[in-house]
């Protein structure tokens, strides 16, 4: 049923994905949300090196809760993606290939997905305990002072997500809603 994808994500793999496809991701995801995006965008603007290689990377919009002793990570579900819209096109221009979050993206982001052959996926918001079971390693690699907003490398196995915006203009939120909207 679900499409298996691995990181780094290739252009060909992205082209094969369609809005509505369920995927299972294995490999590396980079944790970054609001404050980290502000900093990453400033680095790109100034032509400075980033704390991780964006090419082929998938960013996961997550700010996990603290891990209990003996656990890899705390609860780790997606945060609302729209807050990252202002920074996303410039990251895509640097080679970012995918993003996992939840909620709708701006038209500028959707256009950039087509232009740069990238994909936007959603994980289930509010399922942070379940999603955490797919995280096998978690290491903060930059901005530790930001706490839950630090940049981290997550090793994931069979991480479940669904394609919302593909690189062909497909939009699952629009398609799904139109299908179930009642006639008025």
């Amino acid at each position, binding site marked *: 049923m679900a499409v298996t994808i691995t990181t780094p994500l290739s252009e060909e793999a992205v082209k094969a994905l369609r809005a509505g496809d369920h995927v299972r991701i294995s490999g590396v995801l980079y944790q970054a949300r609001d404050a980290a995006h502000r900093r990453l965008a400033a680095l790109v603007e100034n032509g400075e090196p980033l704390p991780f290689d964006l090419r082929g990377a998938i960013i996961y919009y997550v700010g996990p*809760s603290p891990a209990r002793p003996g656990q890899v990570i705390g609860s780790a*579900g997606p945060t609302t993606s729209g807050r990252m819209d202002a920074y996303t096109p410039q990251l895509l221009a640097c080679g970012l290939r995918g993003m996992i979050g939840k*909620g709708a993206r701006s038209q500028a982001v959707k256009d950039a997905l087509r232009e740069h052959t990238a994909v936007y996926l959603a994980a289930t918001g509010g*399922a942070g305990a*379940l999603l955490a079971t797919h995280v096998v390693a978690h290491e903060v690699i930059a901005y530790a002072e930001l706490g839950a907003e630090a940049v981290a490398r997550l090793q994931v196995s069979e991480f479940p997500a669904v394609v919302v915006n593909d690189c062909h203009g497909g939009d699952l*939120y629009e398609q799904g809603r139109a299908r179930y*909207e*009642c006639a008025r």
Partner: protein
Amino acid sequence: MPVVRELDVGAITEAVAALCVAAGCDLPDDVSAALSTALRAEESAAGREVLAQLLENADIAAARQVPICQDTGLAVVFAEVGQDVHLRGGGFADAVDEGVRRGYRDGYLRKSVVAEPAHARRNTGDNTPAILHTSIVPGSAVRLTLMAKGGGAENMSSLTMLKPSQGWDGVAQTVVDTVGKAGPDPCPPVIVGVGLGGTIEMVTLLAKKALLREIGSRHADERLAALEDELLAAVNCLGIGPQGLGGRTTALAVFIEEMPCHIASLPVAVNMQCHAQRHKTVVL
């Protein structure tokens, strides 16, 4: 002449800390039952998968004592303090904040509060300050309710000052528009708290208090109960569905709280809540 009850604020701190820890990992039974009912009724396959994931998530959270959602919220505390209670040993608000500080630390809950919201956005590091609503009530008990309110759904809430001529139709349109514009962002299925009347600050408080109702409970006022049913049906016609992937289950409940208002006004507040409707009450 009632006897004044002496209560050390240390008891407030302990109670608030315990509420924070308990609220983080336990999905309330009413939400769990509503998700199960929705799973049976949902026509959308993608929607059913989401609902099943949310139920599985609740089981994992309880078993492993991992928060239901990584956004363990701002601590919104409703305190009803009996007028025959004398609190001693420190400030009441300080005691509540200390409880939040301990609860979020000891419960491995996320610290999600930033200071200087439009500038530095510096994390306060301990999830304080709490959002504290205190009322003085008859009696000698202290009743504390903690709501761990996530940011994603809160962001999709609305406040509208309608013209009185817009009446109930205007209110209904405002609620449906708010849920419709929110789309997938507040993590549907949502619970919708509607405040009606009062003033701008009171109507939002009414909307928030509405979220404390138990799903499946009938409003005591039959007129409002019927309006809640009408709004729930209208919202679930939007097609947004679980996580916005399309489906019939956009909301699990709509709750209304109302009060009188100015002759010139018709205030409406819509407070959005995701399925992680974490709230706990204790009476001291």
